[in-house]
């Protein structure tokens, strides 16, 4: 029996926890959750299956992304046919939802500084219309290209899903402050900000540019801690891109965890004093669940 494979209420969670001989849970009373991924499985696909898809799409995948320095990211961003996504053993198993013990998590880290770039991140789509992918076990080459730098997500075809039954997402996270920045933005990739929605414009600096997703920031600490992000608390960067009053919860492609270069980049064509802006980090995300309405 799976410890948490379906939407569960508080009572259901206790029953499931009991059935799994787990210790008491950490979630507050009155909340119920639906598992998206607890990262205990193999491969890059999330366990959560969208209840209704028009195309019969399968479950979505995790991937990392950056515009530069992709050979300096672990796991490295790759094209879909060279999928190298893996989860990582946590330093010490800890108790998560329903008293379950977590042994693995999604970890994204840098091996070299990423220089003068907006940042990097990891994300999962809720669906994928590509059935099977043969993961690569080869180490990434030093000159690994950054597939997401082309701003073209058509290689990851997916169907948007309806999240109106959910109030937000909750997850566990931690970061190594000695490795670099610990602030993470949680983004909802909806139809209006994801180029696959064919609403916004992929062209950089266009008035209706994509990628300005509704988001919220969290500060990760040295130990795993639970965070909750309500969809109603998300906001867009007010400066650029295609902007609306609220996210389109009826059409959502995925969720991203992004790290931005502290202090921002040196503007193109400008001269900035000192060393160029650089980004390093070591962040962990675990047990991502929907918060049910």
């Amino acid at each position, binding site marked *: 029996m799976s410890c948490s494979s379906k939407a569960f209420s508080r009572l259901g969670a206790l029953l499931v926890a009991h059935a799994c001989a787990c210790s008491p849970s950490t979630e507050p009373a009155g909340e119920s959750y639906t598992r998206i991924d607890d990262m205990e499985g193999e491969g890059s696909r999330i366990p959560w299956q969208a209840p209704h898809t028009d195309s019969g799409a399968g479950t979505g995948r995790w991937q990392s992304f950056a515009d530069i320095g992709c050979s300096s990211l672990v796991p490295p961003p790759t094209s879909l046919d060279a999928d190298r996504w893996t989860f990582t053993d946590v330093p010490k198993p800890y108790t998560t939802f329903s008293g379950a013990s977590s042994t693995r998590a999604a970890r994204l880290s840098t091996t070299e500084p990423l220089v003068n770039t907006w940042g990097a991140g990891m994300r999962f789509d809720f669906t994928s219309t590509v059935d099977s992918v043969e993961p690569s076990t080869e180490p990434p080459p030093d000159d690994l290209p950054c597939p997401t730098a082309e701003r073209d997500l058509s290689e990851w075809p997916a169907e948007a899903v309806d999240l109106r039954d959910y109030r937000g997402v909750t997850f566990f996270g931690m970061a190594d402050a000695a490795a670099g920045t610990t602030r993470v933005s949680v983004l909802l990739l909806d139809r209006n900000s994801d180029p696959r929605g064919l609403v916004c414009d992929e062209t950089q600096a266009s*008035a209706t540019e994509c990628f300005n997703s509704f988001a919220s920031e969290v500060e990760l600490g040295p130990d795993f801690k639970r965070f909750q992000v309500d969809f109603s608390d998300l906001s867009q*960067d*007010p*400066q*650029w891109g295609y*902007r609306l009053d609220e996210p389109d919860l009826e059409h959502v492609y995925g969720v991203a965890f992004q790290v931005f270069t*502290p*202090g*921002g980049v*040196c*503007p*193109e*064509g*400008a*001269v*900035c*004093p*000192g060393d160029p*802006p650089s980004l390093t980090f070591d962040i962990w995300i675990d047990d991502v669940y929907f918060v049910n309405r």
Partner: protein
Amino acid sequence: MKTALCLLLLTTTVGCFDVEQVDPCAGTTPFLVDDFEDDDVLASPPFERWSCSGFNPDGNPQAVNDCGKISRDEENEAFMGDFTLTDVENELQEFTGASLSTSSTRTFDLGCYRAIGLSAKFVPGNPPPPAKYYVELTCQSATSGGTPGPYSVIREIDLTSSWLRFPLSLSNFRQPTWQTNALDGGEKACLARVDGVGLLLSTNLGDGDTGSGVLYIDDVLFE
């Protein structure tokens, strides 16, 4: 009798209520954008790193000879940019210029602030450029006719080769004349969503002419 007394008390009590005036700007304190006294060139969040850039032509790093912090005196530091500006020889006058600026990916509402204070100077090089100087507050998310910018509001200042302190009332900032589309909501709409602060040097160099100098800024504060 008791009922009448209660009614009287109730009436009196109701009549004594004041409508509490809530000042949305209560508790607003001065916001130090940067005094350049720390170890970096990052302004106070949400503003980010300071940079030096040339414009007209835009994105012209060749115009920047030097950019960084500099000792103002024994105790204080400031930020400076050393520029050599050339109006491209093309039978047109481009009004080439330069700026020291910090920007943000978020907006800052100046609605509860009355002024921006800063110290600045310009030390002309050889040859000195004929120039005007402006403090600029940018607001890329402001709109004109519903269309986003980039837009800004500016205030001209007179710089000398000695440090001067400028307290500049925000009510005197105006949209620059080179922005021909009027801001929706006027200058206030821009001040409500400021995403950049800059000190601009706009030259009046003739076609093909060159001028140089060093622009300094310090102690930038919203008051």
